[in-house]
């Protein structure tokens, strides 16, 4: 081998080594080291993967999913989980999901709306892998969807806000004008108005899911405009910090945000994915899994209210408990008529319930919301 050819050979080796190393990076396997002694053949490890849109340390959306993952590992020790953080929605996601399927994961949870098409595309190539897409609407033979009726928790938190406000102006820091966020604002406002018909909910769109400083600034703006309670549909506690600093109150979202703003946070509307992850993995293990479109509510515990702050009085707590019972009874739900829109026109007649399809395509505000839905 001539010198030139030999160096070319080494260069190729070096590049492939780097590629292999690069391939190893990017995902983390989180489980106890495998040892053949303590895992008998009958208790084969089940490999489960999670694709996250944000960092696990966002104290919001992704943290809530990662808490669910930790719960799963705790309840089912023979599960081995892999996570990939900060995966952009779109083409990159497809590459990451393919890699996870290729690595022998049996169940892959993709935890953001924008992973919908990538999940469907990859699933078609790996029919023996189960894919669960969070918050979307497309299914396939091996793709199910799952989401929670967080609007029920938001309604309950609205009761707390309605009882707490003195200025009758409640601020709501909202991310993007999509049906999911609009539904949350509407449910919250109905909760507020059920105990305080004079209170208004003022909305600001931030056009971001994740920017702590901008979200805090939006909160400050609402407080300056007279709000004394802030609610949020954002993935960081920015608005809660604004309330804390100005001695006002707040309603957190995603996870219990009281640690970040102990004097301000009345309660938080929270996600509790853990039990559902256990249920799904068990169903796959027992071969009872179907490609369902799961949309669970308070009754399944997948959404809930975080513990109340010390400033919430007993009267308010019992009003919340009462409303919760009403929802749990299944005879009544948040979007049961009569419901008026901002112009005062009746959109849902007395006694009528909005269907899931109607709720999933919400594009109007209920009466009591002070804000507009931008049309791009």
């Amino acid at each position, binding site marked *: 081998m001539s010198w030139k050819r030999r160096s070319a050979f080494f260069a190729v080796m070096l590049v492939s080594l780097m590629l292999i190393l690069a391939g190893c990076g990017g995902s983390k396997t989180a489980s106890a080291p495998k040892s053949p002694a303590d895992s008998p053949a009958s208790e084969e490890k089940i490999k489960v993967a999670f694709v996250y849109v944000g960092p696990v340390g966002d*104290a919001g959306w992704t943290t809530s999913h990662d808490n669910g993952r930790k719960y799963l590992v705790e309840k089912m020790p023979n599960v081995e989980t892999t996570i990939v953080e900060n995966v952009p929605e779109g083409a990159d996601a497809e590459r990451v999901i393919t890699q996870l399927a290729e690595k022998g994961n049996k169940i892959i949870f993709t935890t953001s709306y924008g992973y919908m098409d990538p999940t469907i595309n990859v699933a078609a190539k790996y029919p023996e892998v189960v894919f669960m897409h969070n918050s979307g609407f497309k299914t396939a033979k091996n793709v199910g969807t799952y989401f929670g009726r967080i609007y029920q928790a938001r309604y309950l938190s609205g009761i707390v806000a309605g009882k707490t406000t003195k200025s009758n102006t409640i601020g709501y820091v909202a991310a993007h004008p999509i049906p999911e966020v609009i539904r949350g604002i509407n449910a919250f406002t109905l909760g507020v108005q059920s105990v305080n018909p004079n209170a208004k909910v003022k909305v600001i769109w931030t056009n971001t899911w994740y920017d702590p*400083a901008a979200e805090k*600034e939006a909160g400050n703006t609402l407080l*300056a405009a007279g709000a004394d309670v802030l609610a949020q549909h954002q993935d960081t506690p920015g608005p809660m910090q604004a309330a804390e600093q100005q001695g006002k109150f707040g309603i957190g979202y995603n996870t219990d945000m009281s640690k970040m703003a102990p004097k301000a946070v009345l309660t938080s509307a929270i996600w509790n994915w853990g039990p559902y992850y256990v249920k799904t993995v068990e169903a796959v293990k027992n071969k009872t899994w179907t490609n369902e479109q799961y949309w669970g509510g308070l009754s399944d515990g997948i959404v809930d209210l975080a513990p109340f702050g010390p400033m919430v009085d007993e009267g308010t707590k019992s009003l919340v408990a009462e409303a919760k019972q009403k929802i749990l009874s299944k005879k009544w739900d948040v979007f049961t008529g009569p419901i008026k829109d901002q112009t005062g026109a009746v959109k849902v007649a007395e006694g009528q319930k909005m269907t899931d399809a109607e709720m999933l395509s919400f594009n109007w505000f209920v009466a009591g919301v002070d804000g507009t839905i931008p049309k791009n």
Partner: protein
Amino acid sequence: MSGLEFLIPLLAAAITAGTPILFAALGELITERAGITNLGVEGIMLVGAVAGFMAAVATGSPWLGLLAAMLAGGGMAFIHAILTITLRANQVVSGLSLVIFGTGLSGYLGKNYVGIPVPQSFTPVPLGPLADIPFLGPIFFKHDILVYLSFVLVIILFFYLYRTRPGLNLRALGENPAAVDALGLNVFALKYIYVVIGGMLSGIGGAYLSLAYAPSWLENMTAGRGWIAVALVIFALWNPVRAMLGAYLFGGIDSLGFRLQVVGVGISPFILDMLPYLFTVLVLVFVVARHKGRLTAPGALGLPYDREER
């Protein structure tokens, strides 16, 4: 709501929102004046933010947090200096890898610091009688101490650059390092010093977010402000006073959008988000047209310096 009632809080908010960008932009400005492009500002800010937060939690003192942020930012920039000055690596590539490195490193270091409050943060301190000046007082003199520090820094930097001999040497370093070399000054040492100082300022910019603006640590909490700082240096045409104005303009855009929504004026947030970059392009077009096609960037910006190639 009267005009003043709208304007005063808006401008005050613009200053707060602009301050982290201003620190980072001043850092980048010094770096680029020394002839080095450092695109790693976003990563340096993140490392500064997490280091400052960790130190403030450990010691209870935001000032020690600030010191830690400066050291961490300076350390990040030192890596860039070794790569680009001594090893003469491509500055763009080195800067971009610094962003990726800083994002990962800060996330790793901050794992156990997410969602905990900091014992003491920088809070607003009205500046005595200055705060009582009508109109100007509530806009400029009711902030935290770091904002006042940034005012002073802009003035010092302006005089340093345009009124002192070392400042002249700094400008020459970016225009024509060979001339500085001919003066008998150590080009390499000077470049190292200015790149590291630039990193320290970017670190302060990050710490402003984690210790003053939104006191907490959250992964990726800079949310693109490092990139805005880089665009801002070009917008400012490498002049610290213009950088200050630009920082408040860029920082104030979010606040303006929120306030317009509250008073019921609908304007697409996409257009607002576009504005900083649109302004930068407009300034460039304007400058290029006025200076007959010549941008006023430091002449030797981005070029590695090699004594033997003089």
